[in-house]
């Protein structure tokens, strides 16, 4: 077998050494930095994109938080407004009711006063009518004429009795 023929051992070792060193230099200075750079670049880009995605996610979450906060605030505000409006309306209606009550009670009072006056007046008339009737009745029956003072006293006594 030619492999065991030492004639060409030195030349093979020599050229092995030369070519191996050349390949080492070419790969370590030319090819490997290139491939390494490509891989690094890709890794960097992937990391960049992941970072960007994380950043966007954080931003979105922040926006959601802001939105929810605004929503809660406006809800609270609406409730305050509603409560205030309800209170104002209750106050107003209460006031109006009081006014109405006042007016009604005033009117009732005035009415009662008027009724009292009319009653007094009516009672006065009754006295005159009774006196007149008593005079005419006694004049017709007896023909006597009674003086006014006695008639008035008798009417007053009769009214007093009737009470």
């Amino acid at each position, binding site marked *: 077998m030619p492999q065991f023929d030492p004639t*060409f051992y030195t030349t093979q070792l020599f050229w092995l050494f030369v070519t191996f060193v050349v390949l080492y230099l070419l790969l*370590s200075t030319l090819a490997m930095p290139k491939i*390494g750079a490509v891989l690094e670049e890709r890794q960097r880009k992937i990391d960049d994109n992941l970072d960007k995605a994380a950043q966007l996610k954080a931003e979105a979450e922040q926006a959601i938080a802001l939105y929810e906060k605004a929503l809660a605030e406006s809800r609270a505000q609406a409730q305050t407004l509603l409560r205030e409006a309800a209170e104002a309306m209750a106050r107003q209606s209460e006031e109006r009711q009081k006014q109405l009550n006042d007016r009604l009670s005033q009117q009732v009072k005035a009415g009662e006063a008027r009724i009292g006056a009319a009653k007094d007046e009516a009672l006065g008339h009754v006295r005159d009518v009774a006196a007149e009737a008593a005079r005419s009745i006694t004049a017709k029956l007896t023909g006597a004429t009674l003086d006014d003072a006695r008639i008035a006293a008798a009417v007053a006594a009769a009214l007093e009795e009737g009470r």
Partner: protein
Amino acid sequence: MANPVEQFKIQPLVPIEIGGTNLSFTNSALWMVIAVVVATAFLTLSVRSRALVPGRWQSMAEILYEFVANMIRDNVGTEGRKYFPFIFTLFMFVLVGNLLGMVPYTFTYTSHIIVTFGLAIVVFIGVTIIGFARHGTHYLRMFFPHGAPLATAIILVPIELISYCSRPFSLAIRLFANMTVGHIILKVMAGFVVALGVFGIVPMAFLGGVTILEFGIAVLQAYVFTILSCIYLHDAIHMH
């Protein structure tokens, strides 16, 4: 029928002799130069476009690069990083040599024991130097495992010493034998195809299978050579 070992014959192409030493440029040297050109061209031209999404060629170059990088990271550790260019060169040199040998009418330099031994001895000497440089004389503990009774040293030390020193031989012979035998089988089979005429179809089919197998072996042996070098390097850096 052609002699199946004819293919391994060294033929001087440019006779060179310096100081009585034969340094002729032979067919073996020619294919080493071709391997250097092919490996360099493949690894540089494929990544020329620096595509973010790699094409077929760039993908292959990247896979080879990362394959060796991972091999070193897994087997040697982070300290192995500075030996990455050497290990990668070793891998590419053996891989391209093996694969070029699969092309008809080429010469397979990895089928020569002196070439594989040259590579193996460089690994062996390099690893030994790294071991002594990192651990000093403590590196000699390699030959006597921790925790073994002192009395067993008389048996263990020679065994460990022999196993350590046989590393370059096993490394060299494994690659050389695989390449040589594969190529002889291919050649013998091809001879049968020609000799049997019409019935040559039978060894022809067999030849197809063996060729596929040989491609697998070409890649596998480059891998084995490299990973064993990584393991030896790991031993030298971390001891056992």
